[in-house]
């Protein structure tokens, strides 16, 4: 701690902070009313972009969508897992939570080796994304930092692609739309049962309880 004046809060504000205090006081009152509470729930619809999907897609539909998008991007990810093997991983992927909405989605990631020309990579990635119907916008602020390329794109229905590519690694993250179809919950329950089985992992030397207690 520095030797600031006792009893005072060092640089906790100035005149500017007085304005902010007034501002947040008013803003706080507004928020108290709930009118600017963050987070909204959009309609469960998908655009006409890409594969046909119902309004509340099943896990199979989401898998197909993920394969369509990541399958197309697969060609610009050097050294990535063979496409068929990667698709098998998508088939085995358990759904993930969709914020606090209680719905689920798939969020697969495709990892590969490094790239050499980040500017060219961005152009190519943007071309493929546009063909997929998930175009980048100026708000995505795609660009290069050092030798790393950053590309993003998304749709109002919640689908999202985020790509980081550098000399050593390329990572493509994709998130499907959210759905509350029971097929997703079923898939998650199966994965959950498997995950909880790890609690049974214990060396076989452990004694087993008998009906009447523990006997060696």
């Amino acid at each position, binding site marked *: 701690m520095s030797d600031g004046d006792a009893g005072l809060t060092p640089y906790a504000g100035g005149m500017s902070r007085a304005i902010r205090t007034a501002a947040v006081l008013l803003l706080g009152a507004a928020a108290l009313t709930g009118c600017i509470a963050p987070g909204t729930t959009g309609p469960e619809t998908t655009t006409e972009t890409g594969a046909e999907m119902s309004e509340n897609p099943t896990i199979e539909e989401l898998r197909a969508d993920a394969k369509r998008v990541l399958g197309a991007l697969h060609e610009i990810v050097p050294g990535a897992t063979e496409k068929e093997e990667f698709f098998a991983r998508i088939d085995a992927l358990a759904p993930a939570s969709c914020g606090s909405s209680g719905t689920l989605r798939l969020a697969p990631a495709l990892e590969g080796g490094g790239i050499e020309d980040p500017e060219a990579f961005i152009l190519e990635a943007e071309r493929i994304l546009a063909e997929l119907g998930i175009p980048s916008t100026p708000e995505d602020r795609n660009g290069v930092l050092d030798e790393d390329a950053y590309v993003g794109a998304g749709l109002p229905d919640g689908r999202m692609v985020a790509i980081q590519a550098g000399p050593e690694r390329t990572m493509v993250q994709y998130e499907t739309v959210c759905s509350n179809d029971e097929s997703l919950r079923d898939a998650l329950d199966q994965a959950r049962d498997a995950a909880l089985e790890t609690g049974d992992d214990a060396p076989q030397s452990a004694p087993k309880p008998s009906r009447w207690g523990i*006997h060696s």
Partner: protein
Amino acid sequence: MSLFTIDYSGLDTLPEDSGPLRTAARSLKTVGDGFDTEVTTAGTRWGRVQNHYEGPGAETLAAALKPAVTDAGQLADNLTTLKAAAIALADEVDDLNQRRKTFTGTTQPNAESAFKRNHPAQAAPGYDVQHTVAENNLQDEFDVIAGDWAQAQQTFNTAVEGIARISTNTGAHFDYGTNSTRIGEAARLYRLATAGNATPDDVEAYYAHLAKLNEDEIAAFGAIHPEARVTPPPLPTEPAVGNGFPSGNHGAAWWDGLSPAQQAALGLALPALVGNTNGVPYTDRSAANVRTLKLVLDDPAYTAEQRKAFDSIADALAEGDTSADPGRRYLTHLIPDDPASGRALASVSIGNLDTADDVTVSVSGMGSGTHNMDGEVDNAQGVYNGLTGDRAVVTWLGYDSPDKPGWYGLESGTTSTEVLRNDHANTGGMQLAHFLDGFHETRDHHGDVPTTNVIAHSYGTTTAAAGLTQTEHAVDRYVMYGSAGIDPKVADHASDFNVKRNDEGRPQVYATMAYDDPWAALGQIASERLSPTAEEFGAYTFSSDGEGNVPGKVGNVHDQATSPEDDDWGYLEERGQSYNSITRILDGKAESIDYIDESRYDRDPKDHLELLHTATQTDEWIAALQDHVAEGVRVTGEWLGDRKDDLVDGAEATGEWLGDRKDDLVDGAEATGDWVEDRGEDAAEGISDAWGWAKDKVT
């Protein structure tokens, strides 16, 4: 269709018919009495052997069945107790079924009818607010019934546990093949170790005694003391002393001193102990914690809130590509019922903490908790994906975070002002320090301490700040985003944190804050905590507002992540400038970022009149303001009252409050006082005008 959506799940396990329970209770008693009669008869007949044998040990032989007769009698007595408990439970079931019927058949329909009468137009201003309030009230009423059901089950379970264990008033019905004195001593030491006034010495004595038990005794202890299976000794509120509990050195030495059979038996019989002991390998801890999770997952003895947390933790272990290795998920600690807060505390790691080269521990803020473990781990998965190499990202929800305050929108369902206090951060900071030091020492025990980072959001920055001033071992980097402020009593400069320095000699402390994140600002101002993105704090400040050289979308909310369908952008959302910057820093590329002197929030405050204008554009706001202004004044007054007074009334005091802040802003106490007073009056007038305008609009 019902007007109100009520969560009835609290009574999902309530049987509709108590008949089978009563039948079972009666038959249990009958069987117990029959068993007692049979054994007593057998004992009597066996005693007649004396008539036929007079050799050595004749008396002992004849009395051989006496213990069995005694035991059978006690069993019958206990089954009588059990029957009474079961009948009481059955009575409760009948009563609760009647109350459920009344609720669904009368209470809720009446409430809905009344609401429709009083609020006929859904489009009317304030309708949504009133609907939420009425629905919440109805839910509270139902939750009372559900709570009584949970209590009834707990009462019954207590009765059952009372006859299942050895105690001073209940005999054992089973031969555990063990030395009950040693088990009794373990139980005594456990009670001492978990008492409210337990010292580290008490806990160490418990650990030491367990190391003396063989695997059968360990298993027996766990079997007859179920509370020891799922409740570990609590962490102390002070730093570990030397190599004592709860240091990783203490736990590693203890674990290494056990035989494989003892380790296995402890993992099975006392999983919560193994799962929460610093020094034990994290893979073993995870297996033990998952076992604990399975034990508590559907246990009605836990509260609905705790069981919701268990459910979310279980989901978090399963979601995503969890079979992948690396990238597998581990339950690295789990305390089902934190004695201090009553909450379930836990942490989940993506990646193996025993082997990862780079480890990041994520500390979440207000309103976070294990009830949303899967959502938090989802955020951590994004961070994990953004990093390279053999890494792990830990979602650490190991403290009682403050509730979201009422001003965070009505959906928070609370008028809590906890976030403005520092006590949650101070307590949680110590728990985080135990975790971080425990991790360091666990890995150091094997000679390979990895790069360790801490990232924190909102009130998590307040907590992590407290933790990083109490750790024994320095972390490599500390990254803060959307900070609710740093308690100046804890730290007023980045160099106060136990964080390693870079080649420039500066602590590797980083911070960002989005200009459109009002809640972090509010948290800082109302609590008088410091902004870590201010230049004076000495952190490397990076932009979330589109400044600098890191690509990515501009952040515009306080949250870590937002709803996928909206256009808001949280600090940890992939594609965001904040996310891209944080992952670069954690990945060892911090030097490539163009830092700024301080965030736009710190140097370019917003015009409150513009905010007011924006905020008052919606009719909803006007209507809701009318409904809630009284409540708002009350709640707001509690946490901003002092500040408001400073602004409006206390020119001199405010001048002092501001006087020692930024020299360039304060040229003279008198001028500043006048200026602040004017601004205060502006603010007061603004509120008054808005209120008058709102009333005019509504009326």
